């Protein structure tokens, strides 16, 4: 039986929690250029794996482990559409057992262009990677659209499920999937190939490679592709995008913020209850 080919597409994002209030205000105040919002300056902030993509990457490793125990082969590939900041993550993935690692170079930010991101991923799949299963996170910042998995699936003519929690390969070319649907937790069987967008899965943290693993794969190649290599005109698609951000606003969430006084935790709890919570709690 041939190996199950899994491709995981991931994104590296700025750590939004590390930005200062002033950065958000500056992003809101920046003037729009050519009808498109400039966005918030995030270049100095540390990068993190999008949390749902991290789950997808670890889920693929566990699928591979489970299949190996049954004597079945799995071929893992990792893809990111983005800049050089993705390469340390790709190297880590190679050390963890991913056989293939590729990056589609994009000089322009695709943060608010899910259709362009999806176009690049779908073209990569069509032009040779040819996976049986495409895994990715169900959404990522800063655009938070959740549309990319479906846009990729539509371009490929594949089925897609989002907010996936568990994946179990079946003996034939199908997978059994648990996912959140509009009306509850759904268990469903899909035929491969398909796209699965991982949500709040229990598997949430990517394992760490050993130094030995890193050394063993330190010469493994990362394929760097341009949009043109895949037949995608990234700049052109961005110019003709049908959904364009033009402005960002900060959100004033301030409430009264009354501070409760007291000498000890017990005294503060009593004051909180007596002055603010008693009536509310009685009504609940």
């Amino acid at each position: 039986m041939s190996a199950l080919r899994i491709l995981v597409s991931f994104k590296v994002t700025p750590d939004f929690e590390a930005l200062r209030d002033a950065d958000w205000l500056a992003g809101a105040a920046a003037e729009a250029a050519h009808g498109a919002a400039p966005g918030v300056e995030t270049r100095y902030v540390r990068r993190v794996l999008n949390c749902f993509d991290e789950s997808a990457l670890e889920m693929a490793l566990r699928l591979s482990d489970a299949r190996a125990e049954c004597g079945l082969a799995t071929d893992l590939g990792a893809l990111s559409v983005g800049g050089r900041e993705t390469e340390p993550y790709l190297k880590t993935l190679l050390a963890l057992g991913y056989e293939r690692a590729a990056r589609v170079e994009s000089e322009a930010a695709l943060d608010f262009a899910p259709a362009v991101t999806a176009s690049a991923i779908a073209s990569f799949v069509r032009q040779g990677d040819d996976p049986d299963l495409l895994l990715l996170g169900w959404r990522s910042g800063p655009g938070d659209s959740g549309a990319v998995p479906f846009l990729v699936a539509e371009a490929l003519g594949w089925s897609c499920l989002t907010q996936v929690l568990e994946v179990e390969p079946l003996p034939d070319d199908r997978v059994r999937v648990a996912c959140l649907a509009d009306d509850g937790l759904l268990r469903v069987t899909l035929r491969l190939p398909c796209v699965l967008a991982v949500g709040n899965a229990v598997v949430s943290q990517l394992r760490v490679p050993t130094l030995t693993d890193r050394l063993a794969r330190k010469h493994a190649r990362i394929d760097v592709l341009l949009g043109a290599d895949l037949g995608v005109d990234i700049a052109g698609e961005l110019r003709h995008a049908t959904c364009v951000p033009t402005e960002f606003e900060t959100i004033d969430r301030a409430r009264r913020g009354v501070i409760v006084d007291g000498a000890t935790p017990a005294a503060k709890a009593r004051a909180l209850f007596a002055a603010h919570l008693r009536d509310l709690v009685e009504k609940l």
Partner: protein
Amino acid sequence: MRFAAVLDGTTGAAVRQAQALGGFLREGLSGDLVGETLVFYQDDRDKTRLVELAPTRAVRLIKSTARRPERVVELLAAVARDEDVPLFLFAGGPGGTELAARLACRSNGAVLTEALCVEAGPERLVCRKYVYSAHMVGRFELSGGPSCVTIDASWNEGPEPELAEHDVISDTDETGDPAEPAFEDVELVDLPASGDLAGSRFLVVAGYGAGSRKGIERIAQAARRMGADFGVSRPVAMNAWTPMDRLIGVSGTRAAPELCIVVGASGAPALYWGIEKAAFIAAIDTDEHAPIVRNADVAVVDDGVAVIEELAQIIAAAREAD
């Protein structure tokens, strides 16, 4: 401008979808618009109820099969192709996102998910939505083919639409799709009770400031003692200190309780999004400069576990006295 609201009555989410669409049409959608509702149904016995739920007077009924998004997209694409409908509206959630994205892709249109509002102008549509994990609101202009827009979860909790009259324009049977279904052996499992935080009236939310699994357990126990539901921030769930279904925030549940007590969470926007609809927020945190302190109605600056345990004792005693 014409619009079509899409109500998928083939799954158990029709009422929530109707609430979201109804509220959005009343308060979230502006401009010179005339719309109809495309109601997908599976069972003839559901038709009357689904028509009542429709948020527009004009209704088109389409008999279809549940969990066949590929078929629904085909039917919507035919509407987009044959009739001049520049705006399709979907309730938020996995189903709406799939239909909106696939329809936009197939019709060379635009997709925007989780819209807070839509303004329909003579030349373009303008939508606003949360971006940067709810740190900001972005304004987006949509152009090209049909705009396929899903609605933000904040519209889900409104009342059901109560239009006095509906005109059923058509009722077609589209169940005879010869294509093989994409999904097999479909089994809908009820979510565990702990996952139903969206409807909570009294909620305690714990953050990473609890310090350890033990700290989280103590806060959860205090929540139980005071009769509150219990949720956590993402870092807590990521550390496997609680199941993922307790997650509150952008990547989890959005709640709108009467009272929310936040313990040991800084109140980052990604979490705050999940509780900002709370009628009253009390925060307990050691850092008086944490965002949650200024974004709460009342705050205690102290050790969260110690204060919440004292508070649980006081509330439990007050309830026993009643």
